[in-house]
């Protein structure tokens, strides 16, 4: 196929097929570095914090949290939406960019999908424990009800969420595992010890790279990408329905689904960049995750950040135009009320900060991108906090107006989910190839 000279190579360093295998299998086959151990230990300590705070919540009850009758959703649902949003970038990269034939996705899709799965796991912690009695966490499932004749309510967006998130998790896991099989087989065929041969052999499911299997495999991957694309859009749409179908001023808006989906992709790319910039540096994968990749991701951040910014302004204009005083008050309260600091943090981080990516220098300078990616993560966390807490704390009835402050238990659970996320990510980086070898081998002679 003809490729214009202006295109830059997708993988630099003139790698051969064997180089790709050697480079990407190196961290799996060698002993972990001291930086790996350091990161892993910190993550593990935070994971212990999660176990401790969740244990305390279960033992003592939701009273250990700062939520109250008025602000019944606080940090818990903020964190839930935050984590679910983070997951969306993985599916965008692996599914939507596959349909758009964006070949640059190939060296980042594996780690982005891993991130999706770990983020959804972190998200699941919050609604499960917010139920109060976590051992009854199976009640939202449509099981034959032993406690009476009542079934789950199919009109409720909360039930849609149960289905959407469990489907999203399982389909992402299957998609990820399917992509991993050829690479696990590569690791299996290089393994020296019996244990490695057994375990990688077990998970490779006897893959031998037959042309017949590859032909089927590509069809399966394409269909999975095809169904994952509407799936990922539906998941955050349904998460936004949790708010949009209510009557709370500030939540009851039709712009929520597209606004949430754009926000999810925006925050997800923020996290992908945070992780990949570190991984690329520590593992020395600059030839695979080139500055072209970083630039492409920054452009996605710029686009989705601008969509989110536009949504903030649209929401405000529509509230002003609605002639509905409660809605108008909700937005004035966001901007100038007691939580104004959170609103302006959100505006600065999400609307203003990503605009620096109009400059090519900003899009190609790793340390600078890293800082912006952290700002985006913070901004998107605040977006959920603003939507949830400022809308709830002052609603129709001024006598029930309160302030919400999180307790150390809630802070501990949030820090703990970061621990869970990074523990899983460190284990992934140690035991599985973080770059999709079989896909990268198809593009080493290619240009973007």
């Amino acid at each position: 196929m003809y490729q214009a000279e202006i295109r830059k190579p997708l993988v630099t360093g003139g790698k051969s097929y064997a180089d790709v295998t050697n480079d990407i299998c190196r961290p799996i086959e060698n002993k972990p570095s001291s930086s790996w151990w350091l990161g892993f230990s910190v993550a593990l300590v935070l994971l212990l914090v999660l176990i401790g705070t969740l244990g305390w919540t279960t033992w003592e009850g939701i009273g250990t949290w700062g939520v109250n009758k008025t602000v019944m959703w606080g940090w818990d649902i903020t964190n839930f939406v935050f984590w679910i949003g983070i997951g969306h970038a993985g599916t965008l990269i692996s599914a939507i960019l596959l349909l758009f034939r964006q070949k640059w996705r190939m060296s980042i899709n594996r780690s982005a999908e891993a991130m999706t799965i770990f983020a959804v796991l972190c998200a699941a912690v919050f609604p499960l424990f917010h139920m109060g009695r976590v051992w009854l966490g199976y009640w939202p499932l449509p099981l034959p009800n032993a406690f009476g004749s009542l079934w789950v309510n199919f009109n409720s967006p909360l039930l849609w969420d149960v289905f959407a998130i469990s489907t999203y998790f399982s389909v992402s896991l299957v998609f990820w595992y399917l992509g991993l099989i050829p690479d696990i087989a590569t690791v299996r065929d290089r393994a020296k010890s019996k244990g490695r041969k057994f375990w990688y052999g077990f998970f490779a499911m006897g893959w031998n790279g037959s042309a017949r299997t590859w032909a089927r495999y590509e069809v399966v991957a394409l269909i999975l990408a095809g169904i994952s694309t509407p799936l990922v859009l539906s998941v955050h749409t349904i998460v936004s329905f949790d708010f949009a179908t209510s009557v709370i001023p500030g939540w009851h808006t039709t712009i929520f689904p597209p606004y949430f989906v754009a926000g999810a992709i925006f925050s997800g790319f923020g996290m992908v960049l945070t992780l990949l910039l570190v991984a690329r540096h520590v593992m020395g994968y600059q030839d695979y995750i080139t500055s072209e990749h970083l630039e492409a991701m920054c452009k996605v951040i710029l686009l989705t950040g601008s969509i989110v910014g536009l949504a903030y302004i649209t929401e405000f204009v529509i509230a002003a135009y609605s002639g509905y005083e409660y809605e108008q008050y909700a937005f004035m309260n966001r901007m100038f009320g007691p939580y104004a600091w959170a609103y302006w943090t959100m505006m600065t981080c999400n609307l203003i900060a990503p605009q620096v990516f109009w400059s090519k220098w900003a899009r190609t300078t790793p340390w600078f991108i890293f800082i912006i990616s952290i700002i985006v993560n913070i901004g998107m966390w605040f977006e959920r906090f603003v939507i949830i807490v400022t809308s709830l704390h002052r609603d129709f009835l001024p006598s029930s107006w309160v302030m919400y402050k999180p307790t150390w238990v809630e802070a501990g659970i949030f820090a703990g989910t970061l621990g869970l996320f990074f523990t899983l990510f460190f284990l992934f980086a140690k035991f599985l190839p973080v770059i999709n070898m079989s896909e990268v081998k198809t593009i080493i002679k290619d240009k973007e």
Partner: protein
Amino acid sequence: MIDKKVQIGDKKFTLGVFNDEGKLLNAVRSLRKKEVNIFDCYTPFPVHHLDKEMGIKRTNLTVIAFICGALGTTTGFSLAYYMNVLDWPMIIGGKPMDVTVFTSFIPIMFELTVLFTAFGMVIAFFTRSSMIHGFKQDILDLRQTDDLMLLAIEVNEDQPISDDEIKSIINNEGALEIRERGQALEVTY
């Protein structure tokens, strides 16, 4: 569903070893011109057009995907309709609970469609490719998942040209080496 004919087993092969997918494709093309029956190719990554050149028919896994998806949609609807309309209608705010609330079943019908399609198709893929645990797996060379591409031609009387002619074609197309193998390299776990 599992086709024994495509399993390596203890068949005898002439193997062409390549390190370039272009050369492999050319070799397959030349052999197919002589109507040689190619057993299979083993590559570390998907080589485009290889399946077409080898004469492999397009998989019908998409049909299975569609059937599973349709099953998922029906399951989603039946679940919601049975539980919320037939068995125990939940009357909230005096609103009717009959088939007119169909629209609020759509999200779950959609999610189950995706779930059933994904799982049904992946299970069908594993079955069709005999990637099921307990099957002895056949690998002809340890580097076929790393950087080498293998072209396997079964040695039998049905081939239109002699084994030596096949070997010379493979050689002319730039194979690294040509091997003969009576038995698969067994990898047991």
